[in-house]
């Protein structure tokens, strides 16, 4: 009971700070909107997003088709809504898995023996040395394009980001007095890692994860746009853009409304993340 109260107080405090950040509020609204449309996608769509009606192709926005239609007469509004589910799934799955792996590797690297630390750093640096898109394209060639492939690629290239941040945090904690006294009292390594270090690195990692979500959404959309991501006819924002790009001379609407949700979502998450970071931890600055 006391624990829930404490959590509630924390949330109220965050809200009190966030209220004073207009951009944070705008970001929060957009994030709620996108998550809401991803959750309620089935109720919000007007027609089946893959249903063709060739007669109505390249329609501008109208009452029947709020955002117009694409080259096969599919309703862009319904495709955008269905696409939000794919974007959010990819982002949440990829970010939570890579943050989880990064957390374990980072703590191990920060608290473990020197050779482990060095090999982890080398691993992180190596994974970061591939230009992201080139690496993604090479992997797609090998295991074939799909949503799973994209999530896998994003996980691999995001691990260094989380791993390095956790390692730095762990190193700072390791030298703090309370950890030193735990060690002096003979606390076991699992206890140190799980009970003392993990809760203290979780906060900064949550902020980092929130900042990474827009990056992941952009990457999923980008690879799908290139035709190496979610397979058509499944509606992903990147696929809508790809169709719009191919028929750019026939109708501007698929391109306009395929791009808008990507820009809105990335801006929303970024503004929210920036405000939250300023509220929760003014010292933390994202590594460039």
């Amino acid at each position, binding site marked *: 009971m006391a624990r829930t109260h404490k959590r509630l107080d924390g949330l109220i405090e965050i809200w009190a700070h966030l209220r004073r950040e207009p*951009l944070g509020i705008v970001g929060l609204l957009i994030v709620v909107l996108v998550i809401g449309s991803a959750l309620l996608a089935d109720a919000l769509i007007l027609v089946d997003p893959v249903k063709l009606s060739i007669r109505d192709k390249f329609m501008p926005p109208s009452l029947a088709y709020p955002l117009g239609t694409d080259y096969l007469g599919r309703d862009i509004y319904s495709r955008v809504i269905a696409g939000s589910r794919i974007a959010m799934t990819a982002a949440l799955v990829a970010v939570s898995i890579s943050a989880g792996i990064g957390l374990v590797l980072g703590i191990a690297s920060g608290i473990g023996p020197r050779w482990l630390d060095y090999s982890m750093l080398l691993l992180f640096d*190596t994974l970061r040395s591939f*230009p*992201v898109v*080139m690496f993604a394209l090479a992997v797609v*060639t090998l295991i074939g394009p799909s949503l799973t492939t994209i999530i896998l690629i994003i996980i691999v290239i995001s691990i260094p980001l989380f791993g390095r941040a956790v390692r730095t945090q762990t190193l700072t904690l390791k030298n703090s007095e309370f950890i030193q006294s735990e060690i002096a009292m003979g606390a076991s390594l699992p206890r140190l890692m799980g009970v003392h270090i993990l809760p203290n690195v979780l906060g900064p990692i949550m902020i980092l994860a929130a900042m990474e979500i827009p990056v992941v959404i*952009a990457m999923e959309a980008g690879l799908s746009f290139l035709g190496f991501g979610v397979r058509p006819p499944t509606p992903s924002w990147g696929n809508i853009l790809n169709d719009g790009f191919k028929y750019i*001379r026939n109708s501007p609407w698929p391109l306009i409304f395929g791009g808008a949700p990507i820009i809105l979502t*990335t801006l929303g*998450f970024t503004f929210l993340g920036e405000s939250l970071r300023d509220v929760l931890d003014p010292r933390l600055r994202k590594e460039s």
Partner: protein
Amino acid sequence: MLVYVLKRIGLALVIIILAVTLLYLMIHAVPGDPATVMLGPRATPELIAQLHQRMGLDKPLPVQIISFFGRVLSGDLGTDVFQEKPVAGIIISVVPYTLILVGAGIAWSLALGIPLGVFSALRPDSWIDKVAGILSVAFIAMPAFVVGLYALLLFAVTLGWFPVIGGGEGFAGQLHHLVLPAFTVGLGWVGYLARIVRASMLEVLAENHVRHARAHGLPQRVVHYQYVLRIAILPAVTIVGIGIGAMLSGVVFAEIIFARPGLGKLIFVAVQQRNFPLIMGTVLVTTTLFVVATTLSDIVNALLDPRIRERL
């Protein structure tokens, strides 16, 4: 300093070797080896064996990797089995296009980002500073490929101010073709640079020697541009190296959207053809360029700031 430089170069070499080995292993760990994938489902066993031999895939893996490195060092990146041309030649012929695009992107983002940062730092918390701050975050967050598509739609297709496809002929033509792609790859860096310059400018402005210069009665302009900016600009200069590396990724989209020749376009086509030698070669070259750029920027950074040398 020399020790740091040698160590940093050593690390860069190790990273390149590891990265290439990783890539090579990945290609060969996948079920259905490259030869089968390339030849498609109708390939006969003889054809596959023949291609194996040509690509050196019939030898044990460690031998393959070592001989691969040997060939790479002698400048041989293998043969494109589709066009029957050496991969190295194909890559070299398109590298200039990509480098020009990256250079143009960096140049215009420096030209706009640095003044924007200086302007904001000299008027902290004014409405101009706030607007510039929001714009910087927005530029950083917006995915470059969506920016590129919107630019293509508005300025090339609808308004017709700029050409839709190609690299252009002659100097004026090339410049004309470069505008929109360079805008696309550079926009995010305008935001980054503005933020970095603003932050480091504010830091330097608060330092004692600046107060001293003011106390001496030096004019504001001289203090700001000769004393503050000269120091504050260093982080921006060193981050350009990282920017060049990151842009190698961004150019893929710009080159495809604006149908420009270059490394990005090359790997895009190679992936569609499942052209493994060409994919390996392009990834190798871009990874090397990326590592070289970040290493150089680290070394420049260490030259400027001796504290960093301690850390490696």
